[in-house]
């Protein structure tokens, strides 16, 4: 009888081997997959037991903090309500996390790995989050929101010298505190105007004439043109075989590029773009940041790439400017298939302002651990050298003219030189619906602020009349 007993034992050993294999499967082999499962709320639930770090503006204003509840868990509160709603984001059990709360989750929950983490546990210390400090400017942000006055749109302002983001306003906005309730969350998700959307980084709009700054940079920095080079600025010059109109059908004759930028002459810049060519335009656009998700410290799902979007089979997809579907002449004046996020356009202004060097935009500056030490430093990083300092200086002079005597006079600040460019994208020609834009930086001789402003829809509005005053007010607030 002993042989069958040993065989039964062997069969049971195989069954136990199966148990060991399956345990291995869930703990090691399929681990990442299980942890990413949308039904897996363990991490979020665990985080409710952690005193999450606060998020602060440059002035020390608290934008997000944790309060302890009676059952020992923590809840998130946003004392400033909707001021920086889409940028700060939220952290709740039900909708999950978004914005800075999501991007800096590891820092905010104070995940201390390795020896230090073990030591903390041995000392019986609770896991505690690091505080996140940002460069955000609540006063300027409030000015931006007031200026947009409820109109859907976006304002982004950053320091061109280091990329620190100061203003990131997206309207319509919402109060993140209401996301505690599931019903309010559902209501916000389907609310008209998509208040949860961060328009500064995930709103894709035709940039209109503001894009002429990119074309001008490519034209001058490549050595093909000088600001004094002249081009025929008549109306209805054929571009890709189809006549292109200037604003109001105006003909300018032979004009130099400075005048063409000041008066925003479409036909000149379209011809310049065609001569610069797809390859060169593509290279300069890439240096400005087009073609890849806008680089900023927000979750990838909240950042879109600016560039040319063609829909060969009905689905809109990003293509290279060298693609055959692109009309490079019209793209060079911000029309055709070109779409850009407001942050991308602020980066264009920023690169010119910082003598051709584009700094990577950054919202957070550092995190501070519970002992008051700096846990993480978000040091300014160079994104690219877009153009030579000399080219940037020429472009700055041209953009100053726009504000001094061209389409952007409404942005002029008393005593401070402003360089800028207006844009007015046509959204619905029949009903005269336009999307005004303005990008600028100041002071022109020593830039401290670069800005992009857009309003999604106006009836017959212009960049110079509708967007420029907003930029002026925000810049004034930051520079005061």
């Amino acid at each position, binding site marked *: 009888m002993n042989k*069958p*007993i040993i065989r039964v*034992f062997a069969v*049971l050993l195989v069954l136990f081997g199966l148990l060991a294999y399956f345990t291995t499967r*869930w703990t090691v082999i399929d681990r990442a997959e299980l942890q990413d*499962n949308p039904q897996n709320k363990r991490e979020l*639930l665990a985080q409710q037991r952690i005193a999450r770090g606060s998020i602060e503006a440059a002035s020390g204003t608290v934008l997000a903090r944790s309060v302890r509840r009676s059952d020992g*868990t923590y809840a998130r509160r946003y004392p400033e309500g909707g001021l920086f709603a889409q940028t700060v984001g939220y952290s709740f059990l039900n909708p999950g996390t978004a914005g800075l709360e999501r991007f800096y989750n590891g820092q905010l929950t104070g995940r201390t790995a390795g020896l230090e983490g073990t030591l903390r*546990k041995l000392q*019986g210390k609770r896991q505690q989050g690091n505080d996140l400090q940002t460069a955000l400017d609540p006063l300027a942000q409030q000015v931006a929101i007031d200026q947009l006055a409820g109109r859907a749109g976006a304002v982004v302002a950053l320091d061109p010298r280091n990329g620190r983001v100061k203003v990131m306003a997206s309207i319509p906005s919402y109060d993140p505190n209401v996301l505690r309730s599931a019903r309010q969350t559902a209501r916000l998700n389907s609310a008209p105007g998509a208040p949860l959307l961060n328009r500064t980084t995930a709103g894709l709009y035709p940039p209109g004439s503001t894009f002429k700054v990119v074309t001008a940079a490519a034209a001058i920095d490549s050595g093909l043109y000088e600001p004094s080079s002249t081009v025929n600025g008549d109306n209805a010059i054929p571009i890709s075989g189809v006549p292109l109109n200037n604003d109001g059908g105006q003909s300018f004759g032979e004009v130099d590029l400075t005048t063409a930028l000041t008066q925003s002459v479409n036909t000149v810049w379209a011809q310049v773009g065609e001569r610069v060519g797809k390859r060169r335009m593509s290279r300069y656009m890439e240096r400005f940041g087009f073609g890849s998700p806008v680089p900023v410290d927000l979750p990838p799902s909240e950042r879109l790439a600016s560039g040319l979007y063609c829909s060969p089979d009905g689905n809109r997809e990003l293509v290279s400017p060298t693609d055959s579907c692109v009309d490079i002449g019209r793209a060079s004046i911000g029309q055709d298939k070109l779409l850009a996020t407001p942050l991308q356009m602020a980066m264009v202004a920023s690169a010119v302002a910082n003598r051709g060097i584009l700094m990577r935009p950054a919202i957070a500056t550092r995190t501070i651990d519970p002992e008051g030490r700096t846990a993480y430093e978000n040091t300014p990083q160079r994104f690219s050298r877009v153009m030579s300092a000399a080219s940037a200086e020429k472009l700055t002079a041209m953009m100053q003219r726009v504000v001094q005597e061209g389409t952007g006079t409404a942005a002029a600040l008393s005593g401070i030189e402003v360089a800028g460019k207006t844009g007015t994208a046509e959204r619905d020609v029949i009903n005269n619906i336009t999307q005004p834009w303005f990008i600028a930086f100041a002071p022109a001789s020593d830039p401290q602020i670069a800005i992009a402003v857009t309003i999604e829809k106006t009836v017959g509005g212009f960049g110079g009349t509708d967007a420029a005053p907003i930029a002026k007010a925000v810049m004034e607030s930051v520079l005061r």
Partner: protein
Amino acid sequence: MNARNRELLGLLPASLLIVAGFGAVFLQEQTQLDNLSLTYGAIFLGLCFAAHLIIRVRLPDADPYLLPIIAVLASIGLVVIYRLNETLARDQAQWFVIGLIAFAATIVLLRDYRVLERYRYLIAAASIALLLLPRVPGIGQQANGAYLGISLGPVSFQPAEFAKIGIIIFLASYLRDTRALLVSRKRYGITLPRLKHIGPLLLVWGLAMLMLVFIRDLGSSLMFFGGFLAMLYVATDRLIFPVVGFGLFGIGAWFFATTVGHVGDRISAWQHPFDPKLYEQIGGSYQIAQSLFAQADGGLWGEGFGQALISVGDSPILPAAQTDLIYAVIVNELGLIGGIALLLVYVLLIERGFRIAVLARDSFSKLLATGLTTVVALQVFVIVGGVTKVIPLTGVTLPFVSYGGSSIVANFVIVALLLLISDRARREARR
């Protein structure tokens, strides 16, 4: 060194484990590390020492490793339950005392366990009655669709835990008598026993099916039937019996899975744990999905003792953490390493059980030891397999580790019986 001294020495690691375990939980719970953990360790050591003394006096030749293995399992269980809920741990400790009393009583009263053979039909009838008790109106309880528990006044227990011992005793005794007859007749080149010999065995199959219908518990019925087939195979040494047996069980299980709603639900929850509909459904796949999530968080080394996320505030995340899902809690806190270590302790236990069966001289002892060991092993397989999605999850306890009075007491009786068989076998072997 003689067997009893080896046993005594073997209890040391278990005691260290429980002291370290309670120490770790105290550290985690933020209370100062005081001498309470040492007190718990000392009490536990005292209980183990008492059990050791009983064995030393009554069964001097018994297997020296069984008790230390049980002590290790029990200390893991106590620490994990303590970490989940202090009150439950206190209850569990009381059940350990009662289990030890049952253990001592079995050893003292059944000096010669072979008297059990005399009462085999009485034992069988009593066991079947016990199995059906949870369906008796008034005292039966339903949990998650299965009828496993009964409550008599303040005490509630699971009769199936005790019925399994009775049925194994009956089968061991019955098979001892009929094993020769079962293989004596051959037709068409295969072993084909007469109906009157195979009849009672078909009855056992019927009983297993009945359990599926009445008790509605796939896990228990798999455990019983698997134990039965193992004994049948050992008794006859004919592979045809377990093969046909599993075939019949499979057909029966398939039939009930497609007709009995509760069984079918369990199976679809097993196949698609992340299906949103099954996940949301009450009694659906939430428990198995959470079990897998908890294990994934454990990883290779685990999150550390006392780190497992069991509930937030008052809402539980891991349902039945102290019973069904205790293995998931252990893997979450101690990782793959901890889970495998626990499985290895069970493998050691099973190895000792089969060693006893091999050493035993008479067929009844061999069959009894095989049956008891197989049932314990299958119980581990059914619950750990359920928690790790090898098979559909059903609510049986993890022997000596899960919270549950009936389980502790019944398993102590099983160990007592194994020690009785072992003492006799080793004494005879020594002569």
